[in-house]
Structures are given as structure tokens and as C-alpha cells.
């Protein structure tokens, strides 16, 4: 087990390196192929008053005058060993993990990331709990009462949920609950959990529900399909023949087997969501990772883009590792040795 985990962690680090290298290449090489010069790249960070001497100064200070592989090496080195930067009278030390300073406004990226992770994490965790519980429950009930009114209604709603994008449901929710029936009369604003847990939950309720609506629909359909399949298996008949209670048959024998693919997808979805619920954050004006990513991309701000991409990739890798470990608990046939 320990060896397995170590192997996976090692692979994860390699993967993150590859992701960072690819992001780096996309950022620098693609515009270059399209004919952009380094000066034009640097000119974007000079502000409104670009002139050759300020462009040269900025280019040098950001290290854009070095070959790309060297810039990449500096980036990776700073990540593990920290680095010194100078955006003023004195050099400032940025300690590991150092994602560098934003090209655009010279703000250190790492504190920005860490201040935004709780926002996105709050969003993702709450929504995930809601969609897992409701999605799986609805899916199981639908499967057990296949063809019933409940099944048809819930699958109809699920179809709508899958089809409606978050920028529709989220904004509709806002229009209804902040204007029509103002439950949130001054709008939805993120409040930190440590400041006020009740306010935190109350303000997140609407984003959670809009996000969960989309996902629970998907999970309900998945669970239903999985349950229908397993409930038709021979061992379920055997379990029933043994005289087990129906709820034990469903929960222990049926659901457990149907859960494996759902856990896999959940790991992926959840990881992606922590990496930035871009649209949800935009709709509700939350300052999370997704919002940061958007502004980084818009400003062509490499360190910001790198930071968010790596954090996102990190969460996906971690979630997948957790999923693989959870398999062993769900499916006793899986053993890591």
C-alpha cells in the first residue's frame, strides 16, 4: 500500500511538471508561431505608456529576454527553492512555493492563490455534498421504481438539469431570490467560514444549489443506470433468496457495486471544480480560483495562469489518488500491493 502511494505521488509530481511545461509552451510558443515578438509580449505589461526603453526595462526585469527553456528552469527552481525579485528599491524574496509575481501588477501569485482556494473549496465541497446525496438518492429510488411516476418525473428534471448551463440556472436563481422574493436582499456575497459560519453557509446556499442542480442530475442518471444493471445481477437474486432484508440488498449489494463508476467520475468532477468553478464564480462574483484564472488569461499574465493551472492539476491528481484508494474500500476485490 505504502509503495503504491509513493509510486503514485512520484507520478503525480512528474505529471504536474509536464502540465507546467505544456502551459509554459502554450503561453510562449503559440503567440510566437502567430508572429508575436518578445517586445510585443513585454509591451502588454508596460501599461499605456509603452516606449522602447520602458519595454526593454520590463522585458529584462521579467526575464523575457532569456531563452524560453531558461525561463522555464527559473520558474521550476523558484517553485522549489524560492527566488529574489526586484520591483522596487530593494529585492524581495519570494519563498517556496514561489509562483512568481504577476507580470501585470507585480503582486505575488502564491498569497493570491491561497486566499482564493477557500472560496472555491467552499463552493465545491458544499455543492458536492448536495449533489452526491441528492443525485445518488434520486438515482437509487428511480431505479427501484423503474417506470413509476417518480422515475419519470425525476429523470425528466434530471434531463433538464443536465441541459441547463450554470450561467442560466445561477442567474435565474439570482433573479428569483434576490429580486422577486428577496431572500438575499443585498445579493450573494462570499463570507469567510472563519468569520461567520452561518453567514458563510447562507450566502453559499444559492451557488451550491445551482451548481448541484447540474451535477446531481448527471449523477442521478448515472446511479439509476448503474443500479438497474446491478439489481438484475444473479448475486442480487441470491441475496434476496438468502432472505436478506430488501434495504440491505439494495445498500450493501446493489449500491456498493453501482457506486464504483460514480466514485471515479466524482473524483474527476470534484477535482476540476476545485481547480476553479469558473462560470459559477463569475455569475456570483466570487473571488475564487476560477475568477483569478479568467483575469490571468485576459491579462496574458503567465505567472497567474501557471499558478491556477498547477493548483487545478494538483487537485485533480489528488482527487484521483483518493478515488483509487477509496476503490479498495468499496470493492474488496481491489487490493494494492
Amino acid at each position, binding site marked *: 500500500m505504502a509503495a503504491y502511494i509513493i509510486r503514485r505521488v512520484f507520478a503525480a509530481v512528474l*505529471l504536474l511538471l509536464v502540465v507546467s511545461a505544456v502551459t509554459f509552451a502554450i503561453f510562449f510558443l503559440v503567440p510566437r508561431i502567430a508572429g508575436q515578438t518578445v517586445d*510585443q509580449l513585454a509591451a502588454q505589461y508596460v501599461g499605456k505608456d509603452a516606449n522602447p526603453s*520602458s519595454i526593454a526595462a520590463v522585458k529584462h526585469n521579467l526575464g523575457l529576454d532569456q531563452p524560453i527553456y531558461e525561463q522555464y528552469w527559473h520558474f521550476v527552481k523558484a517553485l522549489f527553492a524560492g527566488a529574489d525579485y526586484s*520591483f*522596487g*528599491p530593494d529585492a524581495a524574496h519570494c519563498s517556496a512555493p514561489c509562483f512568481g509575481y504577476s507580470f501585470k501588477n507585480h503582486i505575488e501569485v502564491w498569497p493570491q492563490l491561497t486566499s482564493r482556494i477557500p472560496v472555491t473549496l467552499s463552493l465545491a465541497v458544499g455543492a458536492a455534498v448536495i449533489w452526491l446525496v441528492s443525485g445518488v438518492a434520486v438515482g437509487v429510488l428511480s431505479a427501484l421504481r423503474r417506470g413509476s411516476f417518480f422515475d419519470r418525473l425525476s429523470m425528466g428534471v434530471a434531463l433538464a438539469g443536465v441541459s441547463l448551463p450554470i450561467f442560466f440556472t445561477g442567474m435565474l436563481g*439570482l433573479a428569483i431570490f434576490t429580486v422577486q422574493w428577496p431572500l438575499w436582499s443585498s*445579493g450573494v456575497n462570499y463570507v469567510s467560514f472563519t468569520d461567520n459560519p452561518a453567514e458563510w453557509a447562507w450566502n453559499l446556499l444559492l451557488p451550491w444549489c445551482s451548481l448541484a442542480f447540474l451535477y446531481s442530475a448527471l449523477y442521478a442518471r448515472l446511479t439509476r443506470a448503474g443500479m438497474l444493471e446491478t439489481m438484475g445481477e444473479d448475486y442480487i437474486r441470491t441475496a434476496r433468496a438468502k432472505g436478506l432484508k430488501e434495504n440491505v440488498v439494495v445498500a450493501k449489494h446493489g449500491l456498493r457495486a453501482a457506486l464504483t463508476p460514480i466514485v471515479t467520475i466524482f473524483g474527476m468532477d470534484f477535482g476540476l471544480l476545485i481547480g476553479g468553478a*469558473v462560470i459559477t464564480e463569475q455569475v456570483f462574483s466570487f473571488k475564487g480560483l476560477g475568477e483569478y484564472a479568467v483575469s490571468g488569461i485576459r491579462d496574458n499574465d503567465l505567472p497567474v495562469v501557471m499558478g491556477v493551472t498547477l493548483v487545478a492539476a494538483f487537485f485533480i491528481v489528488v482527487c484521483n489518488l483518493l478515488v483509487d484508494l477509496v476503490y479498495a474500500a468499496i470493492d474488496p476485490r481491489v487490493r494494492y500491493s
Partner: protein
Amino acid sequence: MKRSKATAAMAAAVVLALGATACGGGSKDSGGGKGGGSSAADAALASIVNPSDKKGGTLTFAHSDVPDSLDPGNTYYGWVQNFARLYARSLTTFKPAVGKAGLQIVPDLAESLGKPSADAKTWTYTLRQGVKYEDGTPVTSKDVKYAVERSNFAPEALSNGPTYFKAHLADGDKYQGPYKDKSPDGIKSIETPDDRTIVFHLKDGFADFDYLAGLPGTAPVPQKADKGADYVKHIISSGPYKFSSYEDGKGATLVRNPEWDPKTDPIRKALPDKVEIKFKVNQVTIDNNLINNSLQVDAQGNGVDPQTQPKVLQDPKYKKQTDSAIAGATSYIGLNLHVKPFDNIHCRKAVQWGVDRASAQEAAGGPPKGDVATTLLPPTVNGYTKFDEYPTPNGKGDIAKAKEELAQCGQPNGFTTTLTARSDRNTEMAMATAVQASLKKIGITAEIKSFPSGKYFTNFAGVPDYVHSHNLGMIMTAWGADWPTGFGFLDQITNGAAIKPSGGNNVQELDDPKINEMLNSAIKNTDAAARNKAWGDIDKLIADNASAVPLVYRKNLLFRPTGAANVTVTQAYLGMYDYALMSVSK
């Protein structure tokens, strides 16, 4: 398994990228507003609405985006320049006053306006006595000198602000900036003979210098407190308010600066006890909070969101609370003199006559969002002269005259050209479409090519090589002056010296010796009246050259909450409310 994870991680990067294009504005709304103001629509254009001398309360600002920086030495945004007056005192500033009076430059940190030498090459200012920083130390002329050095000569750290001092100071091209050149003397061309006197030595005569002295970059910064790009986190106030908190990308709170002495400051009333500003608030939320009175100021000052516009214009109660303020910017099309057939003046004039400016105005949002423009200089710039060299009924264009010019140009059946615009600016794209339709009527086919605004000037429309090789004949752009005089407006967009290999704003590549000469000589003239006349004359010459097609003087549709007091539009900062005046009425 491994491969799928790599794919997932890549997918994350792609999703993030896609998210950038999908960022729709959210809509948060919060109930109806209470009561309408007693004032009429546009009242704040010509009066101070809801005048009050009442002290106290919290004046709240919100902004849909973030500032380039709140550091007075690192900002180019008009609204920050306006806002910074709450905590930073530049040598001069614009008078917080109604209408045209707001265009007047007045002494702020200095006792009086600058005293120029006869050739306008040397400018001397004397600081007021008794001005102190928030920590009680006196402000000296050396701090002003240091502020100019850091704001103009350290692009590697403070790249956002204008660098006019670098351009005009006698040794501006030699000095390396305070972070690289550690010699105690600093730049040679700024002298500080004593703690209250500061003397600027310029390369050439520059009669608009008092306007440069009004840029926030002259607000004093004590050298020992300067942390370069990090100074924004601990700005040392010289004005009536000081920062009690600041969070990057989120907002700031300002409280009274007890060391500010109203006796040294004849222009600020400083009525509110506290000032708060929040960044990245959804624009529609801002609008609704203005309407329901839970917010006093939309800091950006560009006016309400297009979504909110019908709501405030159709309801008579809200309509009374709107101000349609001239934004000090003109939308126009530059006809590039090096792209055929615009090298021929008759082809340029054909466009001048053929363009339906009224349809461009409609596309910009109609009369509340703009007036039909006939000059490059907008009416709120010192030196504006009203004229129309291509008069057509209601600005709708004259097909017959346009065809006549086309014939003289040797293109009687019209021609095909490219019209560029910024893809992420809806108004500009809409105007481009309107222009395209009106040119179609005279046989000119303008294919619209759009580019992202962030790279418009650095990579495309502002790069002559690119413009020539891609035949970008018509370049849509908009311009607002850095300071509201004819020179401040015209120099960067019509002087031949402003043509740059990249990032230039003279998109027509106009390099007319006569226009250049007139600009360069008028700016040396210390007689303000003569200068103002010259700007109008130059504007007319540019119109006769026909390379710039003015379309619309942009206007902001501002919403004036009843909870705000002392509200008036300042013409100096691109037609937003004057933030140095505003207070809370409750």
C-alpha cells in the same frame, strides 16, 4: 489510468481557458429603490446636486474591475486620478467645481500655479506651509521630486502611469530612475533649493506644464516608505484620508487623516468620516445598489450597464436621477494615409461625406450615450471650437457629395477596404457595423476585422508594418485626453512624432509638417488664450486633411443615488462625478 489523468489535467487547463471566453455577467438585484431625488435629469451637469455641509458617514465606492493601481505613481486610470485626491495631494489639481469650472487647474500642494520662465522651459513651484503626512512628518519638495522620479523612471516596477515628465525633463532620457541610480542627487533637471521649492527644467517650452503637475505622480512619496510595486499596500497619505486597510484585488478602507490640516487645503471639504471601495463587484449589482441607495458611487464612472440602461431611462422616477455626461472621449475612424486608396485625399473625403454619423450614434446607444461628433476635440476640452467641415442633414451623410469625391479619387464605383475594431468592445463593434452599412451605400465595401483590445495597439492597429501589410485602411478607435487641453488630446493622435513601430495611437499615421509645427509651437506659448485658439485651428486643419473621421462624442449615463450629497460631474476626469466633493446625505 495515468493517461486519463494527464488528459484530465490538460482538460482543466482547457476548461479554464474556455471559461475566459464564457464569462457572462451575473445579475444580482436587490429590490426597488426608495423615493426619487428632487432634481431633474442631467442636474449634476450644471449644478451641485444635493448640496450639503454635513460631516460624517461612510462614502462607499464600488468598481466592476480592479484599478491598475491605487498608487498615485503607478496609475493611468482617470477614475483613480479622481479618487486619489482623497489621499494624495499633487502639486496642482482640477478645481472641484461645477461644469466648465471643473476644467480649471488650481494649486493643491503648491501655493500657486507654476511660475514659468519666459520660454516656458523652467517651472517653479512653492509648496504650501504646514502640509504633513499621516505620520506627522512634514511634506518637502524632495518628496515631490522623489515621487516624480519613481513614477516616471522605474518602468520595471511601476509601469502603469504616464511618463510625461520623462518625456519633457531636460535629462529625462539619461536618468535611470531611483531604483537603479542610487546617487543621492537623483535626477539633475529637478532642483529643490529648499524644502518648499521645486524647480523643473524642461527640454522644450511646455506651457501645459501645470496640467502635468496635476497628475497624481507628483503627489509626495517619502523615499524611506517606498517599496516600489509594494508601496500600494502601504500608501502614505498627504490628503484628508489615509488607508486603514487595503487588499489587492478586493478593496480598501480609508479613514480620516488627523494630520491633514484643512487650513492648508482650500479645495477639499472632506465631509465623510470614512471612505470604502470594493473591487470586482458585478456591474449590474453596482447599478442596483445605486438605485436602492446602498451604494453612493460607481467608481469607474463609465455609467450604468447596458442592461440597466432601459430600467433607469424608462422609469421617470429613475430618469430624474441620471446624468448624461460627456466623457471627454471621441470615437473616430483613422484612415491610414499609407494604405491605398486613402493616400488620396478625395477617397478620404468620400468617407467623410458618406459616413452616417447618426447611425453610429444610434449604435453607440443613442443620445444618452453620445452626441454626433464633427470635430476630434470633444466639447469638454480646453480649446474645443465648434465647426463642421462636412455638414450633412442631421449628420446622416451625403451620398451625392461622397460619390463626387469618389469620382475625383478615380474610384467612381467605390472600392474594398478593411475596417478594424476591438472585438471585446460591444459599442465599438456596433458602430463599425453601422459605418459599414452606410459606406455600402456609396459603393465602399468595408470588411470588418476585429482584434482583442488588449493587443489592438501593441500588435495590430498600432503597428504600421502590420497595418500596411494587411491593408487596414480604416481603423476604429476612441481617444480621451490625458489632460483636458487641445494639446493633451491631439498630440498623441495627430503629431507625426507620435508614430511608433508598435503601440502608437496616431493610427492615421498623420505626419503633416504644418500640423506638427503648429502643435509644437503652440505648446511653447504661455498665453493661455492664444493656445486655446490654436487648438481649435489645428483641429480644423486635421478635419481638412480628412484622415480622421469623428463619429461620436462619448457620453456616460451616470446614476446619481439620493443618498449621495454634493454630486456634480467633473469634466476634467472624463465625465464622472467629482470624488473630492462627494459626501453622504443621510
